[in-house]
């Protein structure tokens, strides 16, 4: 290896990198919370709603699962500003790319979370629903107090894994020139002519964060396996 490393750019660029990391964190946090919330709604609709509405939800999920996230980001990026201008009747309004990116992540991730929640609800036996009905609980009450709490425990490992996938997808906002952590690292690398160091540094940071998430998922998995063994 003939390359001479020089890592000094990284500490000097720290504030800029931290700003990038903040964007990554916002994408992750919003994508996860709203994605899980919307995904849960989709899953409940897919399982319990009347057939035409359930099929609509299924169509939504299959659509977003077959299209690359980058393409979804483009769609939202080009669709949102004119839509906003029409709705607000303000021809000069423009939306910052962060809003488009957030919307794209929530829309797409909800489809993935939906499938996990659906499997989780499916993992709670049909007898449990029957038991709630026999006690006179309404369907909403049954979901809220009996089915979803159990489903959540069963699907916790998958949710953690999906959230790691979400983190791995966040750098894709590069395509709409939104400066997340990878974008910040690339910018510093190009400015200082230290691309190699900055990309390696970014890779190590992502590796550490994702490993943490994977480790958590494995922990949850082991715990749920122990609970199964206790049954």
């Amino acid at each position: 290896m003939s390359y001479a490393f020089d890592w000094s750019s990284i500490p000097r660029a720290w504030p800029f990198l931290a700003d990038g990391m903040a964007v990554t964190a916002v994408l992750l946090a919003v994508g996860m919370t709203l994605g899980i919330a919307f995904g849960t709604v989709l899953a409940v609709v897919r399982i319990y709603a009347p057939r035409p509405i359930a099929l609509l939800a299924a169509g939504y999920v299959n659509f977003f699962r077959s299209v690359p996230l980058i393409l979804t980001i483009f769609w939202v990026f080009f669709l949102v500003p004119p839509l906003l201008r029409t709705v607000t009747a303000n021809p000069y309004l423009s939306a910052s790319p962060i809003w488009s990116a957030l919307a794209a992540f929530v829309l797409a991730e909800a489809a993935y979370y939906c499938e996990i929640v659906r499997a989780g609800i499916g993992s709670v036996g049909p007898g449990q629903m029957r038991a709630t009905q026999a006690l006179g609980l309404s369907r909403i009450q049954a979901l809220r107090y009996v089915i979803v709490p159990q489903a959540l425990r069963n699907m916790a490992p998958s949710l953690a894994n999906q959230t790691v996938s979400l983190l791995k997808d966040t750098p894709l906002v590069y395509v709409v020139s939104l400066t997340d952590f990878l974008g910040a690292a690339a910018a510093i690398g190009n400015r200082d002519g230290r691309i190699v160091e900055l990309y390696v540094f970014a890779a190590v940071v992502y590796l550490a964060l994702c490993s943490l998430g994977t480790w958590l998922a494995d922990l949850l998995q082991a715990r749920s396996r122990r609970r199964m063994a206790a049954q």
Partner: protein
Amino acid sequence: MIVLDNVRKWYGTTPVLNGCSARIAAGETTVICGPSGSGKSTLLRCINALESIQQGSISVDGVEVTAPKTDLCALRARVGMVFQSFELFPHLSVIENLALAQIKVLRRARTAARDRALALLDRVGLAAHAEKYPLQLSGGQQQRVAIARALAMDPRYMLFDEPTSALDPEMVGEVLAVMRQLAMDGMTMVIVTHEMEFARQVAHRMIFMDQGQITADCGKQAFFDPAQQSERIRAFLGGMAQRRITP
């Protein structure tokens, strides 16, 4: 009173209930028996509308179960049900299992619900286990909790769907003892079971089902009297007795 009138049900094109009619009066203990696949459990589930029927009618205390306007939640709160596989909620403690529907359906205060739950747990001999989780209990204990959970709603009727079939033999007795006590207290019960000895002791009425039809509906003396039995029932009871002897 529960009134079944010419109840018919199909799964696809396969008939499962083939015109069942019966009346179950308050204070009676009725045992439904018959070979497996005869439609006993299905009939039981139709009584609290866990399964729909395609023809005929079912009413509980004059309320039409199948009418679209019927408040099913209110009806089901009045008809308690105990399942073969217990169906306790594994993520809730024993006392929370008993309190949940009292609070959410009957709108009882939390403390009142807990008091009622503790009293019932005491009655089934499990007061000491109130804070445990269902999966920490034995099968027999779980089924007694399930009975207490149904009783917590102060039901007028109790439906039992093969309550001892999933239990190890040494635990059957403790569950039957609780049910026997209930019968003596005058609870109206409809029980699907293969425990013929238990039926002989506590039943007032016996209903025998075969291929989706009620082929016998009589007092227990008549049912267990060899002179009055049909060939089919004699064969069934003979098979049951056989099963009891062979390990």
